[in-house]
């Protein structure tokens, strides 16, 4: 938790940097605490507790830019490190675009601002409570099925806080907590393979966390994998599960960053205002949702966040442009990165989407793969189920999907109404037409 001593050291470090050659400086101090409990089969497997502090300082020295971070937050050592950092920065080439944001763009705190991101009861939950929860999760399924060889449940919690100051007048503070409960189940079947799966929940508040049914869900998902095999290569309709749908949206987001655009390693260069994907897709960044992971009043530069449309009916509405890249590209800055992004929802739930599928592949997981950030070409390993006449008939694995990101999103046919709300990226199940699957 940020205390006065952390604020004092942050302000002191900034002033010290300014006195020793910086024209401008920005400092953040982060503190955090984490607990992790893993329970496997019949016993506690791992108990881990930690707390940490970190100071990050940026130097703006006559148009030159450097940074330094450390967990050694003692003045005597910091003095030396800051002086060394400034001296090193002087050796660099001048980069006139390295500047702090204009102070008008900074977030200005008001007393009513509370995104409810910290569970005030965080310190009240005991190790025994957490251990009981992990044990009870394992016991939901352990020895309920002769095929089970391993059940592992982990309970993790953490809280963090940050104090952030910049020499042209920004001061901000944030604090959050997170609790998660995860179960992993592995089975032994007639073959050597051990089908395995997981399920989890994760929340800002302990009271909101799903505390039962996690291991049962993981077991069900593992059992459904038994008999996985690859099927014939071809072009199939693809139903993308809501647990993994963000994986295919991530390359689009990466291509919207100023750094990728300026370095010509983005497949969305010069596409602002153009129809780039299906008109069925609208994506919003809404940074001020209460009790939501990713919510925040300001970004990594202190710039105030706001609700913005990223893609509007398939039209690219914004890039993520920070101060540096806005100056370098001679364009207006937006925000350095998205906060809580979600797709505008359709009307049908997952079951209805599944039942509407005559023949296709329902993807429940990805296995490796990558996207060429410059061209948008991608290829990913997948697992899931063959769907015939609205029913999942065969678990599939060891297959790839391959294509181009823009073409893939042009082929979006329908968006479901079932996003998981325990992540900062909230995407529902989605259906895509004519996707290339490689198998047999």
């Amino acid at each position, binding site marked *: 938790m940020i205390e006065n001593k952390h604020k004092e050291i942050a302000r002191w470090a900034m002033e010290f940097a300014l006195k020793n050659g910086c024209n401008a400086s920005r400092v953040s101090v982060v503190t955090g605490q984490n607990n992790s409990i893993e329970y496997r089969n019949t016993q506690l497997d*791992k108990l881990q507790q930690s707390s940490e502090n970190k100071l990050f300082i940026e130097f703006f020295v006559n148009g030159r830019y*450097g940074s*330094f*971070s450390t967990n050694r937050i003692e003045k005597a050592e910091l003095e030396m490190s800051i002086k060394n950092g400034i001296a090193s920065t002087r050796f660099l080439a001048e980069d006139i675009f*390295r500047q702090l944001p204009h102070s008008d763009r900074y977030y200005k705190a008001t007393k009513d601002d509370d995104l409810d991101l910290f569970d005030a009861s965080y310190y009240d939950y005991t190790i025994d409570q957490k251990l009981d929860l992990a044990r009870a999760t394992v016991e939901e399924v352990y020895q309920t099925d002769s095929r089970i060889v391993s059940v592992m449940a982990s309970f993790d919690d953490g809280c963090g806080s940050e104090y952030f100051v910049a020499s042209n007048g920004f001061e901000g503070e944030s604090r959050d907590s997170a609790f998660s409960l995860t179960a992993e189940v592995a089975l032994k079947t007639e073959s050597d393979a051990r089908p395995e799966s997981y399920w989890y929940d994760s929340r800002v508040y302990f009271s909101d966390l799903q505390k039962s049914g996690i291991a049962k869900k993981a077991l069900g998902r593992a059992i459904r994998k038994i008999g996985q095999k690859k099927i014939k290569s071809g072009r199939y309709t693809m139903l993308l599960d809501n647990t993994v749908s963000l994986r295919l949206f991530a390359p689009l987001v990466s291509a919207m960053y100023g750094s990728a655009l300026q370095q010509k*390693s983005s497949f969305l260069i010069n596409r602002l205002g153009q129809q780039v994907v299906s008109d069925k897709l609208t994506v919003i960044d809404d940074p001020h949702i209460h009790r939501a992971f990713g919510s925040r009043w300001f970004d990594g530069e202190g710039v105030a966040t706001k609700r913005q449309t990223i893609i509007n009916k398939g039209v690219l509405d914004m890039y993520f442009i920070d101060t540096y890249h806005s100056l370098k590209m001679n364009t207006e800055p937006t925000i350095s990165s998205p906060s809580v992004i979600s797709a505008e929802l359709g009307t049908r739930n997952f079951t209805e989407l599944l039942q509407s599928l005559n023949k296709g592949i329902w993807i429940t997981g990805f*296995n490796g793969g990558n996207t060429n950030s410059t061209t948008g*070409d991608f290829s990913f390993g997948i697992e899931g189920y063959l769907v015939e006449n609205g029913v999942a008939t065969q678990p599939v694995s060891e*297959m790839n999907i391959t294509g181009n990101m823009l073409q893939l999103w042009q082929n979006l046919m329908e968006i479901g109404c079932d996003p998981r709300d325990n992540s900062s990226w909230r995407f529902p199940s989605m259906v895509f037409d004519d996707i290339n699957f*490689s198998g047999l």
Partner: protein
Amino acid sequence: MRDIGNSTAIQNMLHHFKVSTDDLQKVISEALSKGGDYADLFFEHTFSNNISLRDGEVNRASSNIDYGVGIRVVIGDQTGYAYVENTRLDDMLRAARTAAGIANMPKEQNPINVTPLTFNNYYKIRKEWPDVSVEDKKRFVQQLNDRVFDLDRRVVKASVSLTDSTSYVLFFNSQGVLSSDYRPMGILAVSCTMEQNGSLESGYASRAYRKGFEFLTLHLIETLAHEAVAQTSLMFEAIKPKGGEMPVVMGAGGSGILLHEAIGHAFEADFNRKNVSIFSDQLGKQVCNPHINVVDDGTVENARGAINVDDEGVAGQKTYIVKDGVLESYLHDRISARHYGVQSTGNGRRQSFRYTPLPRMRVTYMESGNVPEEDMIKSVEYGVYVDNFTNGQVQIGAGDFTFFVKSGYLIEKGKLTQPIKDINIIGNGPQALADITMVGNNLKIDEGAWTCGKDGQSVPVGQGLPSVLVSKLTVGGE
């Protein structure tokens, strides 16, 4: 020359962390006070620096310092862990009591006989990174950028990054083992984007070693510049093949990713101890062609994955995973070694003092066979040749592994023809191992900046392979 692997080195490291062997014994005693049967302390002080170039100028520098000690208590297979970010005795004792919470049977501790560990030094260096100024490093970064632009007029962007790190490590455990290590690392990477007829393509090249400043040479600059430009040029000509099952010739070097993903992880003993690996019941069994030997080796001099001593005080060593086609050994840390009643293979590694050690690979490679690469290519009617990769992954239980191919070639009627790019290849570990039908005579250890992720921890690794023919893998494509 710095002392490494001897008593003087240990004394120097005790001094570095401002602790005495008495302090270490007190902390271990506290860690075992609730009945743990093993405890260890891992001290680490890491300095890392990066300078980078964009748009023709070296215009960004960053540095980081990380310092602390991790305290682990083990009882049976169970682990208690805590760390502190200083080495004050009171704080270490407090963390030791936290880690001790894994056990609950208070018992008296007997004094420990301290036994300094001696070992070979596999990363001798000439000039330590802390002695090198930004100015000295900067010229190599600039030269690499300039060479990339010199080599091809189509280059429109280049970025270069130089990262160095130096870790001071001290280890002590309840068996009295006391060791220290000094771990350097240098990574130089370049990426470039080229434009041709309105199309853009990018390429990347890197090298990473446990070396000092001597790592930076004009030869290295020349090699990386040519590699990045050649790779990017190839991308303009490349297509995606028609996907499906087909023979794959894995070119020597980076193709070691096949071993790392297809079998390496599944041989890490924690997965087998927990009975969740597809290789859990295979120890001592024939798993592939009897001409195949697979090694995980911490003793490859100056390699990114080399370790003088692992993070549990076990000396660096070379371990045969597969010998003559038989599954010879899992990769062990101390916990799994005790579980299986064998010696640790020195694979107990961790990302930093913030993490518990786990069985991790070091430099994983297959020994050379006797088939010339051209004979493999000649034997394939239709398939692919691949030799340039970005990333891979494996599902331990199912055994399904993948790796992403940045570039390669189609093989048609025994000849390399059209370049290919950006495809994923997927297979099943035991099956792929059994499907290796030819092993080349050209083992090459790849020297790229490979990093392996597991349980949220990243560690530097290496990999290598002679060219091999896998008779059947599923290749992504259109």
